[in-house]
Protein backbone atom coordinates (compact mmCIF):
# COMPACT_ATOMS: atom_id res chain seq x y z
CA UNK A 1 0.00 0.00 0.00
CA UNK A 2 2.74 2.40 0.90
CA UNK A 3 4.55 1.47 -2.28
CA UNK A 4 1.45 2.35 -4.28
CA UNK A 5 1.14 5.74 -2.62
CA UNK A 6 4.85 6.34 -3.08
CA UNK A 7 4.62 5.39 -6.78
CA UNK A 8 1.46 7.34 -7.70
CA UNK A 9 0.80 9.99 -5.08
CA UNK A 10 4.19 11.34 -4.17
CA UNK A 11 3.41 14.99 -3.42
CA UNK A 12 7.01 16.07 -3.54
CA UNK A 13 7.43 14.66 -7.05
CA UNK A 14 4.18 16.23 -8.09
CA UNK A 15 5.26 19.63 -6.84
CA UNK A 16 8.49 19.31 -8.77
CA UNK A 17 6.77 18.26 -11.95
CA UNK A 18 3.96 20.81 -11.72
CA UNK A 19 5.63 23.66 -13.67
CA UNK A 20 6.44 21.29 -16.56
CA UNK A 21 2.98 19.88 -16.61
CA UNK A 22 1.54 23.36 -16.58
CA UNK A 23 3.46 24.08 -19.78
CA UNK A 24 2.07 20.86 -21.20
CA UNK A 25 -1.44 21.87 -20.27
CA UNK A 26 -0.79 25.14 -22.10
CA UNK A 27 -0.03 23.21 -25.30
CA UNK A 28 -3.10 21.03 -24.78
CA UNK A 29 -5.22 24.16 -24.43
CA UNK A 30 -3.57 25.71 -27.47
CA UNK A 31 -4.39 22.60 -29.51
CA UNK A 32 -7.96 22.75 -28.26
CA UNK A 33 -8.37 26.41 -29.13
CA UNK A 34 -6.93 25.78 -32.57
CA UNK A 35 -8.73 22.55 -33.38
CA UNK A 36 -12.23 23.36 -32.15
CA UNK A 37 -12.94 26.25 -34.56
CA UNK A 38 -11.03 24.53 -37.38
CA UNK A 39 -12.92 21.29 -36.83
CA UNK A 40 -16.28 23.04 -36.62
CA UNK A 41 -15.63 25.05 -39.77
CA UNK A 42 -14.52 22.07 -41.87
CA UNK A 43 -17.25 19.95 -40.27
CA UNK A 44 -19.87 22.49 -41.33
CA UNK A 45 -18.49 22.65 -44.85
CA UNK A 46 -18.59 18.86 -45.06
CA UNK A 47 -22.11 18.75 -43.60
CA UNK A 48 -23.28 21.18 -46.26
CA UNK A 49 -21.39 19.21 -48.90
CA UNK A 50 -23.18 16.06 -47.76
CA UNK A 51 -26.45 17.55 -48.99
CA UNK A 52 -25.06 19.31 -52.07
CA UNK A 53 -27.09 19.13 -55.23
CA UNK A 54 -24.15 17.76 -57.19
CA UNK A 55 -24.16 14.00 -56.81
CA UNK A 56 -20.45 13.49 -57.36
CA UNK A 57 -19.59 16.07 -54.75
CA UNK A 58 -22.00 14.45 -52.30
CA UNK A 59 -20.40 11.05 -52.86
CA UNK A 60 -16.88 12.41 -52.48
CA UNK A 61 -17.77 14.11 -49.20
CA UNK A 62 -19.34 10.94 -47.83
CA UNK A 63 -16.27 8.85 -48.73
CA UNK A 64 -14.01 11.45 -47.15
CA UNK A 65 -16.02 11.67 -43.94
CA UNK A 66 -16.52 7.93 -43.51
CA UNK A 67 -12.84 7.35 -44.21
CA UNK A 68 -11.67 9.69 -41.50
CA UNK A 69 -14.27 8.41 -39.06
CA UNK A 70 -13.03 4.90 -39.65
CA UNK A 71 -9.34 5.60 -39.06
CA UNK A 72 -8.08 5.49 -35.47
CA UNK A 73 -6.77 8.98 -34.72
CA UNK A 74 -3.45 7.60 -33.50
CA UNK A 75 -2.90 5.85 -36.82
CA UNK A 76 -3.81 9.06 -38.59
CA UNK A 77 -1.31 11.06 -36.52
CA UNK A 78 1.52 8.66 -37.30
CA UNK A 79 0.64 8.52 -40.99
CA UNK A 80 0.49 12.29 -41.33
CA UNK A 81 3.66 12.73 -39.33
CA UNK A 82 5.64 10.23 -41.31
CA UNK A 83 4.15 11.00 -44.71
CA UNK A 84 4.52 14.75 -44.79
CA UNK A 85 8.34 14.75 -45.15
CA UNK A 86 7.91 12.64 -48.29
CA UNK A 87 5.76 15.38 -49.73
CA UNK A 88 8.67 17.73 -49.17
CA UNK A 89 7.03 19.33 -46.13
CA UNK A 90 9.28 19.80 -43.13
CA UNK A 91 6.51 20.07 -40.60
CA UNK A 92 7.01 20.13 -36.87
CA UNK A 93 5.15 17.40 -34.95
CA UNK A 94 2.67 19.97 -33.66
CA UNK A 95 1.61 20.73 -37.22
CA UNK A 96 1.21 17.05 -38.04
CA UNK A 97 -1.01 16.60 -34.99
CA UNK A 98 -3.14 19.59 -35.88
CA UNK A 99 -3.66 18.26 -39.40
CA UNK A 100 -4.41 14.71 -38.26
CA UNK A 101 -6.80 15.65 -35.48
CA UNK A 102 -8.41 18.26 -37.70
CA UNK A 103 -9.22 15.59 -40.29
CA UNK A 104 -10.51 13.30 -37.56
CA UNK A 105 -12.57 15.76 -35.52
CA UNK A 106 -14.10 17.53 -38.51
CA UNK A 107 -15.50 14.22 -39.73
CA UNK A 108 -17.31 13.81 -36.41
CA UNK A 109 -18.40 17.44 -36.24
CA UNK A 110 -19.73 16.92 -39.75
CA UNK A 111 -21.95 14.03 -38.70
CA UNK A 112 -23.30 15.98 -35.73
CA UNK A 113 -24.00 19.12 -37.73
CA UNK A 114 -25.59 17.03 -40.47
CA UNK A 115 -27.99 15.61 -37.91
CA UNK A 116 -28.60 19.13 -36.63
CA UNK A 117 -29.36 20.49 -40.09
CA UNK A 118 -31.65 17.55 -40.71
CA UNK A 119 -33.55 18.28 -37.51
CA UNK A 120 -34.69 21.69 -38.73
CA UNK A 121 -37.99 21.44 -40.63
CA UNK A 122 -37.77 22.24 -44.36
CA UNK A 123 -40.43 24.89 -43.81
CA UNK A 124 -37.86 27.07 -42.04
CA UNK A 125 -35.65 27.33 -45.11
CA UNK A 126 -38.74 27.81 -47.29
CA UNK A 127 -40.13 30.60 -45.14
CA UNK A 128 -36.81 32.41 -45.22
CA UNK A 129 -36.36 31.95 -48.97
CA UNK A 130 -39.95 33.07 -49.56
CA UNK A 131 -39.08 36.45 -48.03
CA UNK A 132 -36.18 36.87 -50.44
CA UNK A 133 -33.25 35.65 -48.37
CA UNK A 134 -30.56 33.84 -50.33
CA UNK A 135 -29.65 30.28 -49.44
CA UNK A 136 -26.54 31.28 -47.52
CA UNK A 137 -28.37 34.01 -45.61
CA UNK A 138 -31.21 31.66 -44.75
CA UNK A 139 -28.73 29.07 -43.54
CA UNK A 140 -26.84 31.53 -41.38
CA UNK A 141 -29.75 33.40 -39.83
CA UNK A 142 -32.52 30.82 -39.71
CA UNK A 143 -31.42 27.21 -40.13
CA UNK A 144 -27.98 27.04 -38.50
CA UNK A 145 -28.89 28.64 -35.17
CA UNK A 146 -31.66 26.07 -34.75
CA UNK A 147 -29.49 23.22 -35.98
CA UNK A 148 -26.69 24.06 -33.57
CA UNK A 149 -29.08 24.48 -30.68
CA UNK A 150 -30.55 21.05 -31.37
CA UNK A 151 -27.17 19.30 -31.27
CA UNK A 152 -25.33 21.45 -28.74
CA UNK A 153 -24.79 18.60 -26.25
CA UNK A 154 -23.28 16.44 -28.99
CA UNK A 155 -21.02 19.23 -30.18
CA UNK A 156 -19.84 19.72 -26.60
CA UNK A 157 -19.21 15.97 -26.17
CA UNK A 158 -17.23 15.83 -29.36
CA UNK A 159 -15.12 18.77 -28.24
CA UNK A 160 -14.33 16.90 -25.03
CA UNK A 161 -13.33 13.87 -27.10
CA UNK A 162 -11.13 16.16 -29.13
CA UNK A 163 -9.35 17.46 -26.03
CA UNK A 164 -8.76 13.93 -24.83
CA UNK A 165 -7.51 13.00 -28.28
CA UNK A 166 -4.76 15.62 -28.09
CA UNK A 167 -2.98 13.34 -25.60
CA UNK A 168 -2.21 11.06 -28.56
CA UNK A 169 0.17 13.75 -29.74
CA UNK A 170 2.60 12.61 -27.06
CA UNK A 171 3.52 9.65 -29.26
CA UNK A 172 5.34 11.88 -31.75
CA UNK A 173 6.85 14.10 -29.10
CA UNK A 174 4.52 17.07 -29.00
CA UNK A 175 5.02 18.66 -25.61
CA UNK A 176 1.41 18.55 -24.52
CA UNK A 177 0.27 17.53 -21.06
CA UNK A 178 0.65 13.76 -21.27
CA UNK A 179 4.01 13.99 -23.00
CA UNK A 180 5.38 16.29 -20.31
CA UNK A 181 4.05 13.95 -17.66
CA UNK A 182 5.68 10.85 -19.18
CA UNK A 183 8.94 12.72 -19.57
CA UNK A 184 8.84 13.69 -15.94
CA UNK A 185 8.01 10.15 -14.98
CA UNK A 186 10.98 8.66 -16.79
CA UNK A 187 13.29 11.21 -15.21
CA UNK A 188 12.20 10.55 -11.63
CA UNK A 189 11.23 6.86 -12.03
CA UNK A 190 7.92 7.64 -10.38
CA UNK A 191 4.39 7.69 -11.84
CA UNK A 192 3.07 10.56 -9.73
CA UNK A 193 3.42 13.07 -12.62
CA UNK A 194 0.97 10.90 -14.59
CA UNK A 195 -1.48 11.06 -11.69
CA UNK A 196 -1.04 14.81 -11.61
CA UNK A 197 -1.66 15.00 -15.37
CA UNK A 198 -4.84 12.99 -14.92
CA UNK A 199 -6.00 15.42 -12.25
CA UNK A 200 -5.21 18.35 -14.52
CA UNK A 201 -7.18 16.81 -17.39
CA UNK A 202 -10.08 16.37 -14.99
CA UNK A 203 -9.83 19.94 -13.74
CA UNK A 204 -9.83 21.15 -17.33
CA UNK A 205 -12.60 18.88 -18.61
CA UNK A 206 -14.93 18.28 -15.68
CA UNK A 207 -16.68 21.65 -16.02
CA UNK A 208 -17.28 20.89 -19.71
CA UNK A 209 -18.53 17.42 -18.90
CA UNK A 210 -20.99 18.87 -16.42
CA UNK A 211 -22.01 21.54 -18.92
CA UNK A 212 -22.72 18.80 -21.45
CA UNK A 213 -24.89 16.99 -18.94
CA UNK A 214 -26.80 20.18 -18.27
CA UNK A 215 -27.28 20.85 -22.00
CA UNK A 216 -28.49 17.30 -22.45
CA UNK A 217 -31.05 17.62 -19.66
CA UNK A 218 -32.20 20.95 -21.06
CA UNK A 219 -32.63 19.43 -24.53
CA UNK A 220 -34.69 16.60 -23.12
CA UNK A 221 -36.76 19.05 -21.15
CA UNK A 222 -37.46 21.20 -24.21
Amino acid sequence: MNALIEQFFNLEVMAQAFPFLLKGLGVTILLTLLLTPLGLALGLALALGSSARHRGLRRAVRIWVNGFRGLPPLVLIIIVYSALPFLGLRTPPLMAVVIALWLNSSAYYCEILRAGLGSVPAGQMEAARATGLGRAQALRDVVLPQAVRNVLPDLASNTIELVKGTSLASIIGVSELLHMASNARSVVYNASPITLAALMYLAFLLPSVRLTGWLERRRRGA
Partner: protein
Amino acid sequence: MRPILDIQALYKSFGDAEVLKNINLKVGEGEMVFLIGPSGSGKSTLLRCCNRLEEPTSGAIWMDNTNLLAGDTDINRMRQRIGMVFQGFNLYPHMTAEQNVMLALRRVQGKSEAEAREIARRELDRMGLAERFGHYPSQLSGGQQQRVAIARSLALGPRVMLMDEPTSALDPELVGGVLEAMREMKAAGMTMLVVSHEMRFAREAADRVAFMQAGEIVEYGTPAELLAREGGRARAFLGGEH
Protein backbone atom coordinates in the same frame (compact mmCIF):
# COMPACT_ATOMS: atom_id res chain seq x y z
CA MET B 1 -58.56 44.60 -64.63
CA ARG B 2 -54.80 44.41 -65.11
CA PRO B 3 -53.53 41.06 -63.91
CA ILE B 4 -50.80 41.14 -61.29
CA LEU B 5 -50.17 37.46 -61.66
CA ASP B 6 -50.61 35.86 -65.06
CA ILE B 7 -49.99 32.13 -65.15
CA GLN B 8 -49.70 30.71 -68.66
CA ALA B 9 -49.58 27.08 -69.79
CA LEU B 10 -47.92 25.97 -66.58
CA TYR B 11 -46.81 22.36 -66.21
CA LYS B 12 -45.13 20.70 -63.29
CA SER B 13 -43.98 17.11 -62.92
CA PHE B 14 -42.38 15.31 -60.01
CA GLY B 15 -40.47 12.60 -61.79
CA ASP B 16 -43.03 10.77 -63.89
CA ALA B 17 -46.02 12.23 -62.08
CA GLU B 18 -47.54 15.18 -63.87
CA VAL B 19 -48.97 17.23 -61.03
CA LEU B 20 -49.92 20.42 -62.89
CA LYS B 21 -51.25 20.31 -66.44
CA ASN B 22 -51.67 23.38 -68.57
CA ILE B 23 -52.64 25.79 -65.83
CA ASN B 24 -53.83 29.20 -67.02
CA LEU B 25 -54.91 31.71 -64.42
CA LYS B 26 -54.97 35.46 -64.07
CA VAL B 27 -55.16 37.21 -60.74
CA GLY B 28 -56.21 40.83 -61.12
CA GLU B 29 -55.10 43.73 -58.97
CA GLY B 30 -56.91 43.68 -55.62
CA GLU B 31 -58.58 40.38 -56.41
CA MET B 32 -58.96 37.52 -54.00
CA VAL B 33 -58.84 34.24 -55.88
CA PHE B 34 -59.44 30.93 -54.13
CA LEU B 35 -57.97 27.61 -55.22
CA ILE B 36 -60.15 24.75 -54.07
CA GLY B 37 -60.32 21.09 -54.88
CA PRO B 38 -59.74 17.63 -53.50
CA SER B 39 -56.58 16.60 -51.70
CA GLY B 40 -53.69 15.94 -54.04
CA SER B 41 -55.19 17.98 -56.90
CA GLY B 42 -52.14 20.26 -57.01
CA LYS B 43 -53.28 23.40 -55.17
CA SER B 44 -50.20 23.74 -52.98
CA THR B 45 -47.90 22.89 -55.85
CA LEU B 46 -49.47 25.61 -58.00
CA LEU B 47 -49.11 28.14 -55.21
CA ARG B 48 -45.50 27.16 -54.59
CA CYS B 49 -44.69 27.52 -58.27
CA CYS B 50 -45.77 31.16 -58.04
CA ASN B 51 -42.67 32.05 -55.97
CA ARG B 52 -40.60 29.19 -57.31
CA LEU B 53 -40.38 27.21 -54.12
CA GLU B 54 -41.20 24.55 -56.72
CA GLU B 55 -39.58 24.84 -60.13
CA PRO B 56 -42.25 24.43 -62.80
CA THR B 57 -41.42 22.13 -65.69
CA SER B 58 -42.63 24.59 -68.32
CA GLY B 59 -44.86 27.59 -68.84
CA ALA B 60 -44.70 31.20 -67.73
CA ILE B 61 -45.76 33.21 -64.73
CA TRP B 62 -45.85 36.91 -65.41
CA MET B 63 -45.79 39.46 -62.67
CA ASP B 64 -45.59 43.13 -63.62
CA ASN B 65 -43.87 42.50 -66.97
CA THR B 66 -41.42 40.03 -65.48
CA ASN B 67 -41.57 36.34 -66.24
CA LEU B 68 -40.77 34.77 -62.89
CA LEU B 69 -39.63 31.61 -64.62
CA ALA B 70 -37.14 33.28 -66.96
CA GLY B 71 -33.54 32.30 -66.38
CA ASP B 72 -32.33 35.84 -65.76
CA THR B 73 -35.04 36.78 -63.26
CA ASP B 74 -33.65 37.72 -59.85
CA ILE B 75 -36.05 35.56 -57.87
CA ASN B 76 -34.88 36.83 -54.49
CA ARG B 77 -35.80 40.35 -55.53
CA MET B 78 -39.20 39.24 -56.85
CA ARG B 79 -39.98 37.22 -53.73
CA GLN B 80 -40.14 40.38 -51.64
CA ARG B 81 -43.15 41.30 -53.74
CA ILE B 82 -44.76 37.87 -53.42
CA GLY B 83 -45.74 37.20 -49.84
CA MET B 84 -46.32 33.63 -48.75
CA VAL B 85 -48.18 32.31 -45.75
CA PHE B 86 -47.91 28.65 -44.82
CA GLN B 87 -50.34 26.25 -43.22
CA GLY B 88 -47.85 25.59 -40.40
CA PHE B 89 -46.86 29.28 -39.98
CA ASN B 90 -43.14 28.45 -40.22
CA LEU B 91 -42.13 31.20 -37.84
CA TYR B 92 -38.50 31.20 -36.75
CA PRO B 93 -38.71 29.71 -33.24
CA HIS B 94 -35.44 31.27 -32.05
CA MET B 95 -36.62 34.80 -32.77
CA THR B 96 -39.27 37.00 -31.19
CA ALA B 97 -42.32 38.09 -33.17
CA GLU B 98 -40.62 41.37 -33.91
CA GLN B 99 -37.35 39.73 -34.98
CA ASN B 100 -39.29 37.37 -37.26
CA VAL B 101 -40.68 40.36 -39.11
CA MET B 102 -37.42 42.31 -39.06
CA LEU B 103 -35.14 39.68 -40.55
CA ALA B 104 -35.88 40.14 -44.24
CA LEU B 105 -36.30 43.89 -43.83
CA ARG B 106 -32.72 43.99 -42.57
CA ARG B 107 -31.09 41.30 -44.69
CA VAL B 108 -32.95 41.65 -47.96
CA GLN B 109 -34.09 45.24 -48.01
CA GLY B 110 -31.06 46.56 -46.15
CA LYS B 111 -33.09 48.65 -43.74
CA SER B 112 -31.52 49.99 -40.58
CA GLU B 113 -32.28 48.28 -37.30
CA ALA B 114 -34.44 51.21 -36.19
CA GLU B 115 -36.36 51.42 -39.43
CA ALA B 116 -36.93 47.68 -39.57
CA ARG B 117 -38.18 47.70 -35.99
CA GLU B 118 -40.57 50.53 -36.71
CA ILE B 119 -42.03 48.72 -39.73
CA ALA B 120 -42.24 45.44 -37.82
CA ARG B 121 -44.11 47.05 -34.95
CA ARG B 122 -46.49 48.81 -37.31
CA GLU B 123 -47.32 45.58 -39.14
CA LEU B 124 -47.69 43.58 -35.93
CA ASP B 125 -49.88 46.33 -34.54
CA ARG B 126 -52.08 46.12 -37.62
CA MET B 127 -52.46 42.40 -36.94
CA GLY B 128 -53.62 43.16 -33.40
CA LEU B 129 -50.37 42.00 -31.84
CA ALA B 130 -49.21 45.23 -30.20
CA GLU B 131 -48.67 43.45 -26.89
CA ARG B 132 -46.70 40.62 -28.43
CA PHE B 133 -43.60 42.18 -30.02
CA GLY B 134 -41.17 40.44 -27.69
CA HIS B 135 -42.89 37.06 -27.53
CA TYR B 136 -41.36 33.95 -29.01
CA PRO B 137 -43.56 31.82 -31.29
CA SER B 138 -43.86 29.16 -28.59
CA GLN B 139 -45.46 31.77 -26.34
CA LEU B 140 -48.16 32.62 -28.88
CA SER B 141 -51.39 30.87 -29.84
CA GLY B 142 -51.67 29.38 -33.32
CA GLY B 143 -53.84 32.26 -34.45
CA GLN B 144 -51.35 34.79 -33.17
CA GLN B 145 -48.49 32.92 -34.81
CA GLN B 146 -50.25 32.96 -38.15
CA ARG B 147 -50.85 36.69 -37.83
CA VAL B 148 -47.15 37.22 -37.09
CA ALA B 149 -46.41 35.23 -40.25
CA ILE B 150 -48.80 37.44 -42.21
CA ALA B 151 -47.12 40.54 -40.77
CA ARG B 152 -43.73 39.10 -41.77
CA SER B 153 -44.91 38.92 -45.37
CA LEU B 154 -46.78 42.21 -45.45
CA ALA B 155 -43.81 44.12 -44.00
CA LEU B 156 -41.91 43.65 -47.24
CA GLY B 157 -44.64 45.45 -49.20
CA PRO B 158 -45.76 42.60 -51.46
CA ARG B 159 -47.93 43.04 -54.54
CA VAL B 160 -49.58 39.69 -54.03
CA MET B 161 -50.02 37.26 -51.15
CA LEU B 162 -49.99 33.50 -51.58
CA MET B 163 -51.72 31.71 -48.73
CA ASP B 164 -51.73 27.93 -48.39
CA GLU B 165 -54.48 26.82 -46.03
CA PRO B 166 -53.72 29.61 -43.56
CA THR B 167 -56.35 28.45 -41.07
CA SER B 168 -56.17 24.65 -41.41
CA ALA B 169 -53.80 24.15 -38.50
CA LEU B 170 -55.80 26.33 -36.13
CA ASP B 171 -58.22 25.42 -33.39
CA PRO B 172 -61.73 26.39 -34.51
CA GLU B 173 -61.98 29.29 -32.08
CA LEU B 174 -58.80 30.85 -33.50
CA VAL B 175 -59.80 30.71 -37.16
CA GLY B 176 -61.92 33.84 -36.99
CA GLY B 177 -59.04 36.15 -36.12
CA VAL B 178 -57.01 35.07 -39.14
CA LEU B 179 -60.00 35.30 -41.49
CA GLU B 180 -60.64 38.77 -40.13
CA ALA B 181 -57.04 39.73 -40.92
CA MET B 182 -57.53 38.43 -44.46
CA ARG B 183 -60.72 40.47 -44.86
CA GLU B 184 -58.84 43.57 -43.79
CA MET B 185 -56.02 42.86 -46.22
CA LYS B 186 -58.56 42.53 -49.00
CA ALA B 187 -60.27 45.73 -47.96
CA ALA B 188 -56.89 47.46 -48.09
CA GLY B 189 -56.57 46.35 -51.71
CA MET B 190 -54.17 43.42 -51.37
CA THR B 191 -54.16 40.87 -54.15
CA MET B 192 -54.45 37.33 -52.82
CA LEU B 193 -54.27 33.80 -54.10
CA VAL B 194 -55.60 31.52 -51.39
CA VAL B 195 -55.80 27.75 -50.99
CA SER B 196 -58.48 27.03 -48.43
CA HIS B 197 -61.05 24.58 -47.25
CA GLU B 198 -63.01 27.36 -45.54
CA MET B 199 -65.88 27.20 -48.00
CA ARG B 200 -68.13 29.60 -46.15
CA PHE B 201 -65.35 32.16 -46.20
CA ALA B 202 -64.70 31.47 -49.89
CA ARG B 203 -68.35 32.03 -50.77
CA GLU B 204 -68.37 35.28 -48.86
CA ALA B 205 -64.96 36.76 -49.69
CA ALA B 206 -63.68 35.30 -52.96
CA ASP B 207 -63.85 37.34 -56.15
CA ARG B 208 -63.05 34.25 -58.19
CA VAL B 209 -62.74 30.57 -57.43
CA ALA B 210 -60.64 28.07 -59.38
CA PHE B 211 -61.61 24.47 -58.82
CA MET B 212 -58.77 22.04 -59.36
CA GLN B 213 -58.87 18.36 -60.02
CA ALA B 214 -55.98 16.05 -60.90
CA GLY B 215 -53.65 18.91 -61.73
CA GLU B 216 -56.03 20.95 -63.86
CA ILE B 217 -58.28 23.91 -63.28
CA VAL B 218 -61.59 22.38 -64.33
CA GLU B 219 -63.94 25.16 -63.26
CA TYR B 220 -63.42 28.86 -62.78
CA GLY B 221 -65.73 31.74 -61.94
CA THR B 222 -67.26 33.84 -59.20
CA PRO B 223 -68.62 31.87 -56.26
CA ALA B 224 -72.14 32.68 -57.43
CA GLU B 225 -71.41 31.36 -60.92
CA LEU B 226 -69.95 28.11 -59.65
CA LEU B 227 -72.80 27.61 -57.20
CA ALA B 228 -75.33 28.14 -59.98
CA ARG B 229 -73.69 25.65 -62.37
CA GLU B 230 -75.92 22.58 -62.49
CA GLY B 231 -74.04 19.33 -61.99
CA GLY B 232 -70.64 20.99 -61.55
CA ARG B 233 -68.25 19.37 -59.08
CA ALA B 234 -67.19 22.74 -57.77
CA ARG B 235 -70.76 23.40 -56.76
CA ALA B 236 -70.90 20.47 -54.38
CA PHE B 237 -67.47 21.37 -53.08
CA LEU B 238 -68.06 25.07 -52.62
CA GLY B 239 -71.54 24.59 -51.22
CA GLY B 240 -70.14 22.39 -48.46
CA GLU B 241 -70.35 23.20 -44.80
CA HIS B 242 -67.12 24.72 -43.46
